[in-house]
């Protein structure tokens, strides 16, 4: 068990262009968990409890997520090259919204550029794009270095749907409105205030 990996920081996709033979820019598709259910979030309608019809957790679960719902996931991508050496790290947010169900959109949150040789960073051919919003498939393209010398690692940094919900109502819908119903009574959220 990797020490940090056992707690956090998984790599969800990676590629190397070392075996690239045709001098065409290397790209890779991968699917992120953004359309599945939050499996620890209860979805059955509550029938009791204080103001249970106002329960924001249930209301959220009842409308989210499904193949057309909104969601966001944060990814960190480290692109490196070993010939005209260099490295770039970017953080991205991939947004989905029902009003953009055919496309989705990706926004860059930050970028840090490493110890790059000028020929490495002269190329802008490092992109993350939505390949298929219906399935959450993204495409990362990296050709900043010599065509056999590019590598990419994609880290999951937060968000998405295949997560563990640790807040109130995470298991059964019984006893809504009481702290005793919490999954862990130190991590609960209230009704509207």
């Amino acid at each position, binding site marked *: 068990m990797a020490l940090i990996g056992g707690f956090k*920081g998984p790599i969800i996709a990676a590629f190397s262009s070392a075996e690239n033979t045709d001098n065409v820019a290397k790209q890779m598709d991968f699917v992120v968990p953004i359309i599945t259910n939050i499996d620890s979030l209860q979805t059955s309608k509550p029938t009791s409890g204080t*103001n249970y019809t106002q329960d924001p957790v249930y*209301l959220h679960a009842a409308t989210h997520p499904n193949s057309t719902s909104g969601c966001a996931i944060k990814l960190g991508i480290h692109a490196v090259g070993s010939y005209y050496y260099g490295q770039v790290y970017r953080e991205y947010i991939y947004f989905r919204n029902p009003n*953009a169900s055919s496309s989705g959109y990706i926004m860059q949150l930050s970028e840090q550029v490493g110890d790059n040789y000028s020929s490495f960073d002269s190329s802008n051919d490092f992109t993350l794009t939505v390949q298929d919003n219906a399935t959450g498939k993204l495409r990362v393209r990296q050709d900043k270095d010599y065509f056999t010398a590019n590598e990419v690692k994609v880290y999951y940094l937060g968000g998405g749907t295949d997560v563990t919900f640790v*807040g109130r109502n995470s298991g059964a819908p019984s006893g809504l409105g009481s702290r005793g119903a919490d999954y862990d009574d130190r991590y609960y959220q*209230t009704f509207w205030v």
Partner: protein
Amino acid sequence: MALIGGNGGIMIACAQTNTYASNGGHDGSNGGAMQFDFYLPVDVQDTVTVPSSTADVRSNFDTRFTTHYIATHNWGTYYWGNNWKEWVIQRRYDNASSGIHATATKIREVIHRGHPSFNGGGSGDGTYPTLTVQDADTLQIRCRIGGDYWNSNNLEMYYLGGSAETPMIGVGADHPTYNYDLTQAWSE
């Protein structure tokens, strides 16, 4: 176990604003904004031990100071758009005067306004959500969401890191020493 959840993906709160005045809920009279409270753990680092030897850098370590790194995703479907914000919530203990204090600070965000009126409109940062400290002792935080039509706001809140129930993986008397070591003595 959720796949990503097993690797650190944690949702700590979520909300949708489609509630109705007839049920004692929101009537849309406040620009769509609604609020709820959530609580962050304060009994942190349960594997940290505090040695009595003053030669140890961990002596007199106060476990009450904490940092929580969280993200909010606020999205709407009418004046539609998405807004991701990242926050740091800091908590400290003041020996000299008034005890525990906490602050909530937004550190960065990205926003996509599918409709130009979403979440404050224009080209600036999103108006919502906001996080404010309600009580530092219990780390009760109030989240106010809005920005879209009153029944069209959604929110997910994720835990990204910090000292909430986190294991200490360095040296500790009650915990094995893993790969990472910590110098046991002060240096200057």
